[in-house]
């Protein structure tokens, strides 16, 4: 393949894997069960990325393993009614077409584990999106490094990845013991905790001992991982009594550095601003589960909204929510369930938004840092109240 007998696209894909193998001293390539490719939203990828993907598609690149995409910068079907500029939309659709030509289904989501059967314990995969990498490694016990866009594509084209980093058991031990001594009551609390810990441990692996331990669900776990991957570069965490590797065997190093969390103030102070008027309430970072859509519908209770309310989710989850009548309930209040998209890669300023409320620590972190928006950050019930009143509830 390296000699180019399968065409320039395959040759280049193998070159990428071999180079990464060299750099990170991998002894071999390992087959992957699935690939998730970042570099989808036009906002993040730009013209250069679009041209690169088109060139690769024109050279006949095709994927060998099930491959999905990260979110795009807009709903691929309902972009016009959401106010996305035409020029942006055409470039975004061009990116999707190029990926489709490679045989990638345009399932654009940061939560591929909520669609179909996710990867199993110990399975090797090559995923890109930082929050999905964290969820797959930590909650499912699958094994992936955080791939860049081209290296994930290279894995999809060859069906393999270089075996280094988190693919190796010896690199999955935690060297930080995070003792949490405060109650965690909401998805926002888990996000605030993740923000604090990500800053503290940077790219290391934290092991959580939470008192009281509670029973965090997938929504809490995806919020925790997403926040740690945003404020730091955490790709794997363990929770005592909860995550599968922590249950299966010892994953805490003997000489682990202790980190003690007595409260979440640092997280809320950093992420929650002071804006009163709210333009948009954004739920679904990472993409909302069916349960979260049901919670929003119940909290709205049929009341009309004054602020815009967008819940981003995977298209397959949107389909399930439609069948269950949740989309009708949310839209009846004036909210919108947006598929395929992420607001972080979206043209938010051009869409006339300046204040956003969210229950996602990751969203708050990037909207503030990347788009310079004013952000309110708090639990879901307060966000839904903000949507109804058009103001952050006092």
């Amino acid at each position, binding site marked *: 393949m390296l000699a180019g007998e399968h065409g320039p696209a395959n040759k280049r894909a193998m*070159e990428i894997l071999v180079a990464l193998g060299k750099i990170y001293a991998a002894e071999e390539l390992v087959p992957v069960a699935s690939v998730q490719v970042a570099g989808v939203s036009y906002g993040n990828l*730009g013209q*250069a*990325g679009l*041209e*690169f993907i088109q060139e690769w598609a024109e050279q006949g690149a095709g994927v060998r393993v099930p491959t999905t995409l990260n979110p795009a910068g807009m709903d691929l079907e309902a972009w016009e009614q959401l106010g996305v500029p035409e020029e942006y939309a055409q470039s975004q659709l061009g990116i999707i077409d190029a990926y489709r030509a490679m045989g990638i289904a345009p399932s654009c989501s940061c939560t591929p584990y909520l669609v179909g059967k996710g990867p199993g314990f110990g399975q090797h995969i090559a995923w890109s999106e930082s929050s999905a990498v964290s969820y797959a490694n930590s909650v499912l016990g699958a094994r992936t490094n955080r791939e860049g866009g*081209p290296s994930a594509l290279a894995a999809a084209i060859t069906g393999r990845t270089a075996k280094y980093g988190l693919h190796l058991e010896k690199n999955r031990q935690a060297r930080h013991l995070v003792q949490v001594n405060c109650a965690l009551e909401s998805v926002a609390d888990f996000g605030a905790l993740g923000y604090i810990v990500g800053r503290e441990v940077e790219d290391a692996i934290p092991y959580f001992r939470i008192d009281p331990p509670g029973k965090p669900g997938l929504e809490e776990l995806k919020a925790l991982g997403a926040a740690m991957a945003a404020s730091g570069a955490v790709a794997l965490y363990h929770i005592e009594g909860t995550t599968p590797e922590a249950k299966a065997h010892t994953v805490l190093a003997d000489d682990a550095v202790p980190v003690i969390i007595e409260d979440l103030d640092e997280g809320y102070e950093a992420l929650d601003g002071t804006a009163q008027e709210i333009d948009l309430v954004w739920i679904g970072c990472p993409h909302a589960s069916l349960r979260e859509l049901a919670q929003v519908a119940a909290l709205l209770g049929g009341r009309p909204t004054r602020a815009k309310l967008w819940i981003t989710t995977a298209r397959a989850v949107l389909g399930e929510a439609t069948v269950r009548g949740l989309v009708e309930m949310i839209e009846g209040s004036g909210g919108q369930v947006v598929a395929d998209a992420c607001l972080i890669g979206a043209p938010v300023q051009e869409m006339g938004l300046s204040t956003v409320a969210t229950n996602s620590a990751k969203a708050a972190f990037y909207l503030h840092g990347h788009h310079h928006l004013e952000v309110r950050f708090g639990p879901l019930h307060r966000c839904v109240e903000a949507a109804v009143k058009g103001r952050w509830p006092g």
Partner: protein
Amino acid sequence: MKLIGRAIKEGRAEGEALVSHEPLGFFGGVDPETGVVIEPGHELEGDCIAGTILVFPRGKGSTVGSYTLYRLRKEGLAPAGIVNSQSEAIVAVGAIISEIPMVDRIDLFQIQTGDEVTIDGDTVEVVRPARRN
């Protein structure tokens, strides 16, 4: 002088060295429309990397930097070749997709800005031009 490193992207390239001892991030750090380093306070701020043999320890910053390198190449503003001390994924992948010869594991202190450098596979040949008055 001949230095032997490790080929990250095989190939041959010639150019004048532009040397920095600071890591360089391409996304946000290099203007893709001019090829000029724009990271405030960077050792190379204001320098154009187009056509040079760009010598720096390693990449840094966003993984989108791989695509920035590709765009520079499309605009004719990419470096002719890259020499690193220790390569990482962003620049390595960027060099491969942009077909820019690249070598790492080189002692950067053997090269000065203005040297005539030839990369060939894993070899970096450095010729210091006679000082002009």
